[in-house]
């Protein structure tokens, strides 16, 4: 088979994507952990991991090796088979749902007619891994963690799902590529058409991935480590991988639905075409910083490693600048730049996750449920009705887009404000009642 036949083979891109999801994703998850530790350290005015590799760059690999060779402990009264299989369910579900995510217009495995539903539905299957793992451990901490996790996931999935329906109304399709395409033709990212939907999805997605401030299932002070308490070594690493993959999945959904997928900011405005140089410039900046830091590393090996990282970033810069500067290479621009913008937006979303984690204290479980059912769900419903009304006003009655969407957004905010007001009133009376009954007793 000659090269041309291979390059035009229809299964080539899906195969590359599938292989990279399975092979590269564990590495990416490891590095997200490193970034999280670094961001946390930065916010707490520390340095974070600095020992393994320059600036701790090899820490994830050391951690993975450590976890691989650790002893795999199975509790004596555990349900052996389920204990073995449960982490696999979580990982499989998380990775499978990534198969419908388009990383830019070219790099995708399958453009399904039901793409969005596929991602949501399959990633929701991961809960079986959590619940079964918690049950099979035969430990009270694990079981309680698993039950909390299931309750939390089910509660927040409703709000997230309704927030997603709002953007599906705007796009008129469930196919992930078509949703991004619609944002390109409309010339506006859906975060501006449905800001409240984005807010609801942001909160619900944090809760769904069990991250702080909603990390009740693994609240250390109450439940040791939640459903993972009895897990160790590689199986524990699989749960971790699933958790971080789920983070990537929800970030991808948010990017596709609200942040314009692989679109460049202002992709319709030709006056801002110089933004096409931004990817290359950013990579060059990172490379320059690496070269600047390389001589300052303490050990010779670390100096060399830092220089290699710099060279890699420089090469990426060349690759990203090539299709913009050289017209002959323009054919590969959509794939490369789409992928770059998509990954940049996903990273930004994950950064917001970390930022929130290190900023807010943990919720109590009843507060979590109240927030989910008594605030987020009604607001999500109001938001959905608002978007439908705005679309009807705009398309049916020919109102101005900004006017109709602004009006319904304001109304939704009013509903949210009303809910907060009512909720505060109820809380006060409840506490009073409790005191009263205590006094009577």
């Amino acid at each position, binding site marked *: 088979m000659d090269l041309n036949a291979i390059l035009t083979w229809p299964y080539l891109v899906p195969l590359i994507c599938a292989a990279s999801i399975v092979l590269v994703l564990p590495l990416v998850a490891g590095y997200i952990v490193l970034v999280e530790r670094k961001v946390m350290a930065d916010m707490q005015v520390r340095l974070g991991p600095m020992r393994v590799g320059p600036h701790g760059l090899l820490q994830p690999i050391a951690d993975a090796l450590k976890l691989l060779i650790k002893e795999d402990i199975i509790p004596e009264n555990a349900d052996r088979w389920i204990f073995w299989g449960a982490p696999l369910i979580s990982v499989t579900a998380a990775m499978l749902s990534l198969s419908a995510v388009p990383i830019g217009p070219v790099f995708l495995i399958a453009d*399904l*007619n039901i793409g969005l*539903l*596929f991602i949501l*539905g399959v990633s*929701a*299957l991961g*809960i*079986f891994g959590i619940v079964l793992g918690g*049950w099979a451990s035969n430990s009270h901490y694990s079981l309680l963690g698993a039950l909390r996790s299931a309750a939390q996931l089910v509660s927040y999935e409703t709000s997230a799902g309704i927030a997603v329906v709002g953007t599906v109304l705007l796009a008129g399709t469930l196919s992930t590529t078509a949703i991004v395409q619609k944002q390109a033709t409309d010339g506006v990212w859906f975060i501006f058409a449905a800001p409240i939907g984005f807010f609801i999805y942001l909160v619900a997605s944090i809760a769904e991935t069990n991250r702080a401030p909603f990390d009740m299932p693994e609240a250390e002070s109450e439940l040791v480590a939640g459903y993972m308490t009895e897990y160790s070594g590689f199986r524990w690493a699989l749960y971790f991988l699933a958790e971080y993959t789920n983070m990537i999945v929800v970030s991808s959904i948010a990017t596709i639905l609200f942040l314009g997928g692989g679109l460049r900011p202002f992709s319709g405005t030709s006056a801002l075409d110089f933004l096409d140089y931004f990817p290359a410039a950013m990579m060059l900046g990172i490379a320059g910083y690496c070269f600047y830091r390389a001589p300052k590393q303490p050990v010779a090996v670390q100096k060399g490693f830092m220089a290699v990282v710099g060279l890699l970033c420089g090469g990426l810069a060349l690759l990203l600048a090539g299709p913009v500067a050289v017209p002959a290479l323009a054919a590969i621009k959509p794939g490369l730049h789409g992928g770059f913008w998509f990954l940049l937006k996903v990273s930004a979303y994950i950064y917001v996750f970390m930022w929130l984690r290190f900023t807010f204290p943990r919720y109590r479980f009843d507060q979590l449920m109240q927030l989910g059912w008594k605030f987020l769900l009604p607001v999500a419903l109001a938001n959905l009705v608002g978007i439908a009304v705005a679309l009807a006003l705009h398309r049916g009655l020919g109102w101005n887009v900004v006017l109709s969407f602004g009006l319904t957004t304001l109304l939704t905010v009013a509903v949210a404000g009303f809910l907060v007001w009512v909720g505060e009133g109820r809380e006060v009376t409840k506490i009073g009642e409790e005191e009263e009954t205590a006094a009577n007793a």
Partner: protein
Amino acid sequence: MLDLVIFYFFAALAVGAAVMVVTRQNVVHSAIFLATALLATAGIFLSLHAEFLFIVQIILYTGGILVLYVFVIMLVNLDLALHQVQFNRRWYVALLLTVVLGAEAFAAIAVSRQSLYALPPAPAQALDPNTEQVAWGLFHTYVLPFEIASVLLLVAMIGGVIMAKKRI
């Protein structure tokens, strides 16, 4: 040919898992096999190009209802169930009835084989776009039955809340 292989694979998986659901002693194991059976059914839907049914089967049954089942099962004391006798002593009556029913089904298929195969095959793109066709059927062609079913479900839901809650 490949279609047939896929169909029989999922069909065998579904039937086998369904048998395991009934015969397992441990309820959690039954739940896992039930999930397998439901997913295998979803696989059959997908092989028939009914993508929307496929994903709705996964979201509703596996992701929704079964999660609730598992949730409840875990709160129940399983040790008690493990020591109970699983099968009634007159299980062979049920077996006999099942065999009769199965024979009936096979006979029906064998008799109607001609007429079934006489149906013209659907055109290749008959089910595309899947989601839109389902929506058209539910919200346009059969909108009244659909709304009646919705109201019924709503009534059941409110009834459930009222029965479960002591003080509203």
